[in-house]
């Protein structure tokens, strides 16, 4: 279904995105989604989950808060844990989440860990999200916690969404 090649050894373009200035300069071990793609995907997903949560709260009142949390959890865990590894935002931006070691789907367990990791990333004023700007493997904190990477679908094709 999904590309079985490890994220650190991407198919056909092993050094794409890897700087070649000098051996001392550290770059990612394979193709990675850039910050702009991830930011836009995040905004799209935030809009979808935000509007859905607002409607749930209108419908269910106080119980809506709890249901909103479940809604967000279900959205990210189901879509990122599915073989395609794409939320709606990631699909629109042509990126996907893969297991860092295998380069394949992360599964629902790791997707759940990644969702909890998002909360950790957000605690110090979203520092965990900005971390990818200077991380060697372009990973956020929740990527590191769940051992995942976000990669372009051009290098890690998706056959069927959500798979």
């Amino acid at each position, binding site marked *: 279904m999904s590309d079985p090649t490890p994220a650190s050894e991407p198919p056909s373009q092993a050094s794409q995105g890897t*700087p070649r*200035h*000098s051996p*001392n*300069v*550290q*770059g990612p071990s394979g193709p990675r989604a*850039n*910050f*702009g793609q991830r*930011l836009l995907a995040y905004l799209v997903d935030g809009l979808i989950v935000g509007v859905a949560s607002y409607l749930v709260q209108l419908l269910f009142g106080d119980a809506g808060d709890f249901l909103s949390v479940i809604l967000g959890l279900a959205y990210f865990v189901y879509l990122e844990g599915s073989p395609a590894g794409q939320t709606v935002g990631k699909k629109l931006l042509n990126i996907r989440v893969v297991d860092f070691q295998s380069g394949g789907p992360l599964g629902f367990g790791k997707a759940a860990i990644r969702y909890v990791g998002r909360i950790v990333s*957000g*605690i*110090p*004023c*979203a*520092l965990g999200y*900005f971390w*990818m*700007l*200077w991380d*060697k493997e372009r990973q956020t904190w929740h990527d590191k916690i769940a051992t995942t990477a976000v990669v372009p679908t051009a290098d890690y094709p998706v056959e069927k969404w959500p798979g």
Partner: protein
Amino acid sequence: MGTSTCGRADALRAWTGSVALEVADLRIAGLALCAAALVLPVMPLYPGVTCPLRASTGIPCPLCGITTSIRATMRLDLAEAAALNPGGLAAVVAAAVLLVTRRPRITVPAAALPILIACLWVFELVRFDRL
């Protein structure tokens, strides 16, 4: 033993080497920060950015006050910006420099950014009387 030595060497290299930063990524991050600082406060029903760490523990994070600091920088109130969080002032200057640079990537010492974050954290801890 060999693995341990190799691990230590890798860790040392991670701190003493350089990291390649994609200018396009940094440019977008800088613009996003500046846009958020300008747009969020004028949005209707804007509740303000609350630091989850400070709200839950009372301990400020390294980026506390950065949105307000960027807003102050944008209206050229540099003293207030520096007093709130010098990182906001630096972020606007860096975003402006990155907008005009044509290099696709820049390299910085790997230790520079963790040290910068540590310095900002100490600054915020002092500002909030937590040290």
